């Protein structure tokens, strides 16, 4: 068990190094970071900047520097805001996390009951309907869903604000939009993992003993179907953070995604790099936590 933990921690560190390499590559993939950062500057200025930023050093040396700076949380100064990039990015973090957690909560509260009912009444009209909605949900572009919700609730019905993040009412449409992106996949997984356990021997035994159907489903089946659900939590989080970038842009939510999209338009790469790294870091840590939870939940591994 301890060796397993050590191995997980080593993998965490290796993956984080890889994540830094990819983040480093964003600025260097074009070959000349300076012309990327200031496309209209005269050549003389570029030479100066290249020297000042250390872009003349060999790439491995530059990456080693980047790695050391990243470890200290230093991504350089934002060109646009003229301030260190990381604090700017961290400032926007709570908003994005709130949006993500709200959407995740909504997703779970829709997907779990509907997924269970779909599995229990397999091939019923309800199941087919749910499956079709899943297809519809996975086929809708997130940003379009957002605009259609604006059209319906803000423009036509005038019930909710078009954009912003100032009141609780303003949170409704972004949360709803983001949840439509994550619910279908979750529902599908709940349904299929329920289907896998629902006809197993011990569930049948519980039924045969005369345990009521709902206790069978909740207590005997769902607990065992939860394991695959936990493993996709990391994937879900990555999906939600990706969706948050678009959702924030549609609704002008002052979060991390909107900051990154804005920074990309302004070619403000320290912000882009800090944001990309931070989001990947969250995904990696969530996956790490999921791994630990999995070890804890799975008796086969725990005992060893």
């Amino acid at each position, binding site marked *: 068990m301890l060796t397993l933990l050590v191995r997980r921690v080593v*993998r965490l560190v290796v993956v984080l190094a890889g994540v830094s390499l990819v983040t480093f590559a964003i600025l260097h993939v074009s070959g000349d970071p300076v012309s990327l950062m200031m496309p209209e500057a005269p050549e003389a200025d570029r030479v100066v900047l290249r020297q000042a930023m250390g872009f003349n050093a060999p790439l491995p040396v530059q990456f080693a520097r980047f790695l050391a700076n990243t470890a200290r949380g230093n991504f350089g100064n934002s060109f646009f805001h003229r301030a260190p990039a990381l604090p700017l990015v961290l400032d926007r973090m709570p908003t994005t996390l709130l949006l993500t957690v709200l959407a995740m909560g909504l997703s779970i509260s829709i997907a779990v009951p509907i997924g269970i009912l779909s599995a229990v009444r397999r091939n019923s009209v309800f199941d087919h309907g749910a499956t079709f909605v899943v297809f519809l949900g996975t*086929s809708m572009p*997130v940003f379009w869903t957002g605009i259609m919700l604006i059209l319906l609730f803000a423009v036509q019905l005038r019930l909710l604000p078009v954009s912003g993040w100032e009141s609780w009412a303003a949170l409704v449409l972004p949360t709803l939009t983001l949840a439509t992106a994550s619910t279908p996949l979750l529902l599908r997984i709940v349904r299929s993992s329920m289907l896998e356990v629902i006809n197993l021997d011990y569930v049948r035994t519980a039924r045969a003993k005369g345990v009521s159907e709902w206790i069978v489903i909740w207590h005997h089946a769902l607990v065992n179907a939860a394991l695959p659900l936990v493993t996709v939590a990391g994937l879900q989080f*990555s999906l939600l953070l990706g969706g948050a*970038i678009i959702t924030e*842009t549609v609704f002008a939510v002052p979060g991390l995604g909107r900051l990154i999209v804005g920074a990309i338009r302004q070619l403000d790469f320290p912000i882009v790099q800090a944001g990309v790294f931070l989001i990947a870091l969250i995904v990696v840590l969530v996956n790490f936590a999921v791994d630990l939870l999995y070890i804890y939940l799975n008796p086969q591994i725990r005992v060893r």
Partner: protein
Amino acid sequence: MSIDTLAPSTVALHEGAARSAEGSRTWRKLARNPAAIAGGVILLVVIGAAVFAPHVAPHEAARQSLIRRFTPPLWAHGGNTAYLLGTDQVGRDILSRIIHGARISLVVGVSAVLVSLTVGVTLGLLGGFLQGRVDTVIMTVVDVMLSFPQLLLALAFVAALGPSLTTIIVVLGLTGWERYTRVVRAEVLALREKDFVEAARAMGASPTRVLLRHLLPNTFSSIIVMSTLQVAQAILAEAALSFLGVGTGSAYPTWGQMIALGRDFVSVAWWLPTFPGLAILLTVLSINLVGDRLRDALDPRVG
């Protein structure tokens, strides 16, 4: 035909016959399914529109007309038979632009998947077959790639490389290959212990031959299903990139860009963002339906 190729080719003949029988069974299963048929028909219409865009589009996609701007769709008050789905803020015909936009979506969707497919399958085969250190490295790279939301990575790299059609295809392709690697690797790991692989090896088949002739073909059905579904994903990703302003970098209409431009006018002209979005929805939905039924049809366990 020389003698030493005779034996394998006879085998190939039998395999071929078996495969075509399997193929027709797959088709029969698909043809029985109304959802797959509906998806297939919609998909054919979209492909037709993309191929013959200049001939089937009622107007030139770029032609502006200030007196015709904001013409509502045909059935709405003030609609005009010449502009079935209405016109945009500079009087361009929305239907024609959607028809042209189908080209970008399909080209990007299919090409990006071809890139992913090549990279992902190669790495999956190598990892599963060679195992050991190579496999560890490949799986670490997969873990790293899975740490980023695909859209975020694509957004950053397309911006860094400069928006163009090629950039979008390559970046989407290189950020979406992990799924192939994982599945192909898992299948190779399971297959390499099977008797027929053992037999091929005992008969003196080289590792390359075992890999390409015996292992690779057995992963085809999952690759086909994954690729189909991935085309749908790539179309959505391209639309999102266009929407966020790092699209193809040209004036040629794309669905994502139409929605981005239409968003600002949603309160005065609802049809501007609505119809391109419906085009995406229908195209992606039809691909997903076909892909999903293809999965069932290729799975011998499903009746």
